[in-house]
Structure formats: structure tokens, C-alpha cells
């Protein structure tokens, strides 16, 4: 293999085949992908969840993960929070010529590690190489399909007054880790990204069925914006307590230094569950038994008003409305 990816690797000719056979396909091989047909034929029945996401993170490698891990986990998580059991993924790579082959190899390695760990299979894919400057090193798109069990009715529009809001752990880890991973920041922040596949955590609680009203993973836009989305979709008010939201000390300090609010900083392995009040404690207990949900906590509840506001009760007893994130000044983080 060449040391760097060349335009010719995306030509569709011999070099493309060599790249795919030697570097891209081996780690993610399975009988469906191996057929190398123009599309994969899948045998599925029942309700299907279908989603897609593109990943443009800078830098490609950050403490606790890389763009490959992110691309697999991101799509698995979008399926999982709808109650679906993730089955198949597509994987599309847009590579800027000049990307070190070793980098691509490392990224493919984390993709295969994640698919192996979750049992989700990549069944179709595409590779393109573009001129230098037409992309930033590597962009990945993944789409995913999962099957949704009967008896579930999970949606951002289903939050009900009285619902308890459960958060699966500390916030802001991913955003801060990526910012720390940017070589240009001249200080070290001891935080790793929380990037993780949430399908085992959601599978653990799916048996609670209709008691789970809404689930979402608070990714790029952070906890505050995700709660706002649900409050507005469900036309309810949400009240959360500052003191019950777990934040790592290092994340807190880094946010202070960078002028950020952890409520608006990205996560890639956290789950928010809006659960019926009478089942919330049992769901919380179940989540705490999963390593990914060890620090789960009830952080607030849904109120009956219809203004779509999210209100934060501060530690000293004041309240303020927390709005959606406005604008975007941060580096690309997912």
C-alpha cells in the first residue's frame, strides 16, 4: 500500500479495489458485505428504524476515540434511543488525498472493533477520494437500520407532565476531550471522550415498554439544547436541578477556562430518558447496573405547562430559563 491515500484510490479502478480489499473491508467483513454487490439485500420484518449521520470531527483522533468510533457509535445511538435494536450500517468514506494510510488503518480498526463489540454489521459502503482542500482529511457518513420491538412508543413528542428525567452520567466529556485534543490548545486537560455505543444500555431498559416516553442522546448541542428540543416537541415545561447534574471536575474547570457552559457541551455516550414517574426509580436502578449508566441520576421532571421552556434550578435556589444553543463558535466536534 502507498503511504498516503492518492486521488487514484478513489477512481473505482485497480487502486480502489486494492484499498478496499486490503484496508477497508477486512476488519468489517461479513457474508452480506462480502458479496460486494451494488446494494445489500436484507431480510427484515416488522417495524424498522432508519437513520443517517455524517461525521466531520477535527481532529480525527482525540482522547478516548476517533472519527471511526464516533461514526459507528453515533448511528447506533440514534437507533438505540428510538428503542430500536441496531442491525445494519452503511459506511461511506470521503477522503482528502494525502491522508496518511496509517491513519485510515487506525480508523478502520476502531470501526471494526466497534462493530464487533456491538454485533452491528456494515453491509454496504462507498469510498471516494477528493482533491486536497475539497475535504478536511476524512469525512464519514453512516446510515443504520434497526428493528423496533412492538409495544414501544418512544418519541421526543411523548414527554408527559410528571415524567422523571434520567441522565446516564457526566456531561461535557466529549466536547472538552475534542477541544483538548486540538493540538493548538496549549494545556492538557485530563478528560477522555465518552464516545460509546448505547445499545446495551437502552436494551436493558426497553422491557419497561410504555413507561419510557422519550429517549435521546444529547450529542453535539449538549444537554440543554436536547432538553429544549423535547420540551418544544412535547409542548411541556421541563425543570432540572443544577445540583443533580453530574459534571467531572476537570470538565468544569476546562469549561471555565474556555468560557463554555457544560450544559451546551457535546456528549457522545450519554442517554436522557423521560420516564413515567411510577417506574422512574426502577429504570434508574437498572441503568445504574450497566457500566455505561453507573452515574445515572434523576435530574429533573416535566411540568404541566405548555410553554416549552426548560428551567434550571440553581444550587442556591434561583431559577433561570436555559435556551437552545445559539450559533456555533466551537471547532467541529462530531
Amino acid at each position: 500500500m502507498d503511504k498516503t491515500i492518492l486521488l487514484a484510490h478513489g477512481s473505482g479502478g485497480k487502486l480502489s479495489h486494492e484499498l478496499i480489499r486490503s484496508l477497508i473491508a477486512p476488519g468489517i467483513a461479513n457474508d452480506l458485505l462480502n458479496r460486494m454487490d451494488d446494494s445489500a439485500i436484507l431480510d427484515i420484518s416488522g417495524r424498522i428504524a432508519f437513520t443517517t449521520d455524517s461525521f466531520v470531527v477535527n481532529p480525527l483522533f482525540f482522547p478516548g476515540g476517533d472519527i471511526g468510533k464516533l461514526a459507528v457509535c453515533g448511528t447506533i445511538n440514534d437507533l438505540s434511543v428510538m428503542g430500536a435494536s441496531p442491525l445494519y450500517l452503511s459506511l461511506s468514506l470521503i477522503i482528502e488525498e494525502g491522508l496518511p494510510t496509517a491513519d485510515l488503518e487506525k480508523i478502520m480498526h476502531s470501526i471494526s472493533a466497534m462493530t464487533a463489540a456491538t454485533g452491528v454489521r456494515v453491509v454496504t459502503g462507498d469510498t471516494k477520494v477528493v482533491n486536497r482542500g475539497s475535504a478536511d482529511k476524512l469525512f464519514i457518513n453512516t446510515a443504520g437500520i434497526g428493528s423496533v420491538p412492538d409495544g414501544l412508543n418512544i418519541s421526543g413528542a411523548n414527554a408527559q407532565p410528571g415524567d422523571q428525567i434520567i441522565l446516564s452520567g457526566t456531561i461535557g466529556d466529549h466536547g472538552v476531550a475534542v477541544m483538548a485534543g486540538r493540538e493548538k490548545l496549549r494545556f492538557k486537560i485530563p478528560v477522555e471522550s465518552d464516545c460509546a455505543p448505547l445499545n446495551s444500555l437502552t436494551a436493558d431498559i426497553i422491557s419497561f415498554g410504555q413507561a419510557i416516553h422519550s429517549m435521546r442522546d444529547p450529542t453535539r448541542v449538549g444537554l440543554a439544547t436536547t432538553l429544549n428540543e423535547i420540551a418544544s416537541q412535547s409542548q411541556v415545561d421541563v425543570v432540572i436541578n443544577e445540583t443533580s447534574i453530574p459534571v467531572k471536575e476537570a470538565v468544569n474547570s476546562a469549561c471555565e477556562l474556555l468560557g463554555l457552559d457544560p450544559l451546551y457541551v457535546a456528549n457522545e455516550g450519554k442517554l436522557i430518558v423521560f420516564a413515567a414517574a411510577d417506574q422512574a426509580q426502577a429504570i434508574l436502578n437498572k441503568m445504574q447496573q450497566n457500566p455505561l449508566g453507573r452515574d445515572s441520576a434523576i435530574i429533573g421532571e416535566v411540568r404541566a405547562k405548555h410553554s416549552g421552556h426548560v428551567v434550571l434550578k440553581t444550587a442556591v435556589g434561583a431559577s433561570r430559563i436555559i435556551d437552545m444553543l445559539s450559533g456555533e463558535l466551537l471547532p467541529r466536534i462530531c
Partner: protein
Amino acid sequence: MINEIETRLARGLIEEIHRNSKHPVRLMEFCGGHTVAILKFGLRQLLPPTVQLFSGPGCPVCVTSVRDIDKIIALSQQPGVITATFGDLLRVPGSHSSLQQSRAMGNDIRVVYSALEALDMARQCPEKTVVMIGIGFETTAPTIAASLLQAQKENLRNYKVLSLHKITPPVIQALLAAGEVRIDGIICPGHVSAIIGARPYDFIPSRFNIACAITGFKLLDILEGISSLVKQIEEGRAEVVIAYRSAVRPEGNLTALSLLDSVFEVTGAEWRGIGRVARSGYKINNTFREFDAAEFYKLSPSGQGEPAGCLCGDILRGVRLPADCRLFGRSCIPEHPVGPCMVSAEGACSAYYLYGGLNG
């Protein structure tokens, strides 16, 4: 996010302020960082009605004049220039455009966290000229000064700085001398004071008989500052109290101050809403003239001045609150800002809009 002990201490300080405050007082928080923190903590809801807080001109992006913004945009359009800037500045509207729009038109504008990143760019792109936009108070100026010293050492002639830095005490003096608003006490900036120390504020109690407290940005810091001001005013005293002892010494940070001295000279500066204030800006001195973008590029943009109806100027002087502006929350929102106070994370309008929803 604060812990249990801090919460308990905070409650104690709030009670103390309630106990001590008998007469109505108006306290100006100079710094935009304080405005944001006060609103974020919901402090206004917790203080007695006798204590009124309002913001001052302490948001570096906000006080940059439209003319200077136009100058920066014109600079970004010069051939062969990479403009390095802090993120907040990107969206500030000038007379015709913004840096963000200039970037979308294909000009090379990059967001940096520190001037040292811009210096790296100059090293890596010798065929380009990297211009660092020097905006900020005494806090950001020392790192820009350090970058200039380094550029001189390495003879990096393709590195330039457009210095629009501002100096805090002279503008406070201008506000007090104008006497436009009643100010009983000043919450002095935390980070600026870590550089300049406490002494430059001595004229405030001695000439104007106004109490000062230098505080940090945590809940306890701010409460301690407010408590000290209330106590001083009730007892008829006016002093400069340091309620931020972990970071501020009376004499300031001598290393940073000597950096400033070696690179800059003090000059008059244009403040949005306030006008020209003598000895309130830093200009690159003669020794470093070859790194001065203002010298290198002769920029005289044709500006139209302030956007119609925008009250940023009055808000920066503490004459009005954001809610007094008829654009606030209507045609001027963070997604579509009309004036700079709605753009910057430290801008009073943005802070009131984002955090002030519940009688903040």
C-alpha cells in the same frame, strides 16, 4: 456547577447582604463576564430589592467601534492576508458586512484561542501575511505582546498585529466624570485586575467617593464582592477591596505589565457608545512598528456608523438596560444580532436574552 459547601457559604453571604442592606444602591458590574455570571447564577432573584445591578462597558467586542470593525473587515479582504481572530468577533456586524460574511466570500479568516496560534500560522505560511486582531482589555494584551516579542526574535516579518486593545481605568473615569448615571459602587473586573492590580482604581474612592470591590467569576467571589460593597456603602466608606485574593495582588502582575510596557504605548481610543477616551488604548510602539498592521495597511473604510435603533452605546454606559431597546428580543436576537452586545458571549444583551428569562 457548585458543590454543597459552596452552596452553604453562598447562602450565608446572601443572608449577610439582606441583613446589611438598608438603603437602595446601584452597583455597576464593569465586566461582561460578571454580567453573564450574575444572570447565570440567578443572583438578581436572590438579592434584596435595595441592591440594583447593571452592566458597564466591559465587553471587549462590544466596545469596539463600528469604524474599527469596518477596518478589520477591510483588512481581511487584502490580498495575501490570513486574519486571525478570537471567535466572538466573527459575527459582529460592521457597516456593510461582518467577518463571517467576509470569510464566506472566500477570505482567509481563522479563529484562534491565542496569539501564539497565529504566530504558528505565520511560521507555516511564509508566503502569506498573518494579521492577529488584537481586541481585548489588559487581559489579552500581554499574550499579544509576548507574540510580538517572539516574532521579533524570530524575525517573522509576515506576522502583524492590529492593536485595538483598551485600558480599563480611564474609561471608568470617563463614565464617572460624565455623571450620566448614578453609581454607588463598582464591581471591578477580575481578570483585568489580576494583570493591573488594585492600585489603578484608587482614584475611584478618592476622587469620586465610590466604593470598589475586585471579584472573580464564581458565585462566592461575586457574592463576597457585593457584600463588601453593600457594607462599605452602608458604613459610609469608599475603598478598593480585593475580594479575589487568589488571583489579584495590589501591585498586579509585574511580568505581564513589563511585557505591555515593552511593546505598547498608551494612546487615545475610540469606544462604542462612549466616544474617544484619552489614554485608554494600547498602540504598538516604534520599536515594533514593522509588526503594526495599522502602519502596514493604510485602512480608511467608509462606514455608516451605528445600526439604526440599536441601544448598545447606552447599554455600555449603563444608561439603559437591554430590555429598554425596542430591537431587543425582536429583530435583534443571538442568531441575527443587530448590535455587538447581542453577539458577544460577554455582551449584556446576549446575557440578558439567554439567561434573563425569569426576571433575571
